[in-house]
């Protein structure tokens, strides 16, 4: 290679570097903040074990067995009393053998909890029973407050679980346990780390509206320019680190100074 060609190559590299640096700098003025958001939210989601986030350690998974002799109110009696009963289950509620079933009245499913010994309805669960159940399902210390939720559930509770008692505990991470008012079942568990995770996820997918939608146009536009910015960063790595200026034919004076 002649000195001339080497110099030309050098100038081209210098031009490429200058352009990359300039566009990278300007792009980041507009979307750099989203890079910070992606990194912080992504790191949060990666650092905390997902089972911990989901509150698996907040609850006790009891394995209380049904005592078959407790079932004195038979299934056929249940059917004669509730001819439209569906989804029938036998289980235990606070160590007591119970039936759970659904009755559809005008297409609105209503759930029932019934003592399998006497056939008496336990549902709807009163507040005191819900607190008792919350203590039984968890080991979170003292109950701080109890709220009945019948409509407009918070983001963290599925509308299908309504009506439900929200039992808030005075403990690390402000844990809450949701107990169905109609079945006495544990229908939800949350703590600060999960609530934060939900926010992190929304910011991660740039969902600044109210739907959890990864297919939004804002994400597309920003991610598109982010890819461009990232590629230009990689170009700079290439020009400065992988294939740096080692050309002896070029005087030291013209070499780019400092790190990029």
């Amino acid at each position, binding site marked *: 290679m002649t000195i001339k060609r080497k110099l030309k190559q050098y100038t081209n590299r210098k031009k490429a570097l200058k352009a990359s640096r300039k566009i990278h*700098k*300007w792009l*980041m*003025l507009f979307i*750099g*903040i989203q*890079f*910070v958001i*992606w*990194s*912080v939210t*992504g*790191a949060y*989601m*990666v*650092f*905390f*074990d*997902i089972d911990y986030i989901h509150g*698996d350690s907040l*609850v006790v*998974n009891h*394995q*209380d*067995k*049904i005592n*078959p*002799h407790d*079932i004195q109110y*038979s*299934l*056929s009696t249940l*059917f004669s009393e509730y001819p439209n009963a569906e*989804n*029938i*289950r*036998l*289980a*235990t509620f606070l160590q007591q053998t119970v039936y759970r079933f659904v009755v559809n009245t005008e297409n609105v499913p209503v759930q029932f909890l019934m003592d399998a010994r006497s056939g008496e309805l336990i549902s709807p669960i009163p507040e005191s029973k819900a607190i008792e159940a919350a203590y039984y399902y968890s080991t979170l210390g003292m109950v701080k407050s109890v709220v009945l939720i019948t409509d407009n559930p918070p983001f963290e509770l599925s509308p299908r679980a309504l009506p439900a008692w929200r039992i808030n505990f005075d403990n690390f991470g402000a844990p809450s346990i949701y107990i169905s008012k109609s079945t006495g079942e544990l229908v939800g568990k949350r703590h600060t780390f999960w609530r934060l995770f939900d926010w992190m996820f929304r910011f991660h*997918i740039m969902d600044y509206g109210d739907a959890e939608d*990864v*297919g*939004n146009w804002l*994400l*597309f536009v920003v*991610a*598109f320019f*982010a*890819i461009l910015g*990232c*590629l230009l*960063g*990689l170009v*700079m*790595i290439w020009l*400065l*680190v992988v294939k740096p200026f080692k050309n002896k034919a070029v005087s030291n004076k013209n070499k780019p100074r*400092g*790190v*990029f």
Partner: protein
Amino acid sequence: MKWVRKFHKWASIVVGIQFLVWLVSGIYFNLMDTTKAFGRTYKAHINVESRLDRERLVDPSTVLLKYQPSVSLELIKILGYPFYQLTHEKALYSHFKNIYTLVDAYTGKQFLIDKLVAAKIAELSYNGPGKISKVIMLESFIPDYPKQQNPAWQIYFDDEIDTSVYVEANSGRIIGHSDEHKRFADIFFMLHFMDYGNNGSFNNIQNVFFAIAALWLALSGFIWSIHLGLKGKYNIRR
């Protein structure tokens, strides 16, 4: 500022390519057809109309006494036929390890989801053009659904996208469908989560390491930008 620049440079060397992989896979999630990406191309809604003959039902307490102790007994239908599903050990989630017994609700006899029953369940959940070509049992691990911990039947269909239907062997529950579209999308999930061992998780050591590097990269870049701004380097005329 010299140190911020150095951090930015070294963090970018470590995580630069992975950052590009995150962005490209991220934009793929943004654009993908979720029905296809989740394997639901030929997923049909199962609806078997059947009448329950309540007179013929075996008494639940008889069933409970006959088998090992149960946490719950549930009257369910599989292919329109009634069964009692006994749960002996109940996990927090259905995909965790659960121990069930299925009992014929009319006879009280234990019922096993065999190859033929699993194939029938799969067929009803499928509305594509294919026919069943093969049925195999997966005892411990389902590559298409790595989080599932219970044994399952894999039912292969001979359609153009290689659909497989997974039926949980101890309960008859449909775990899900999978096909070429889902497997293609799963490559992007694998890349985004750095889940190269297919553990169905993003809480892995390589991801933690690169997440830290990404934090360094983004934060140092952020500080650098602010510094440039304060020094008046964001000037359009330059």
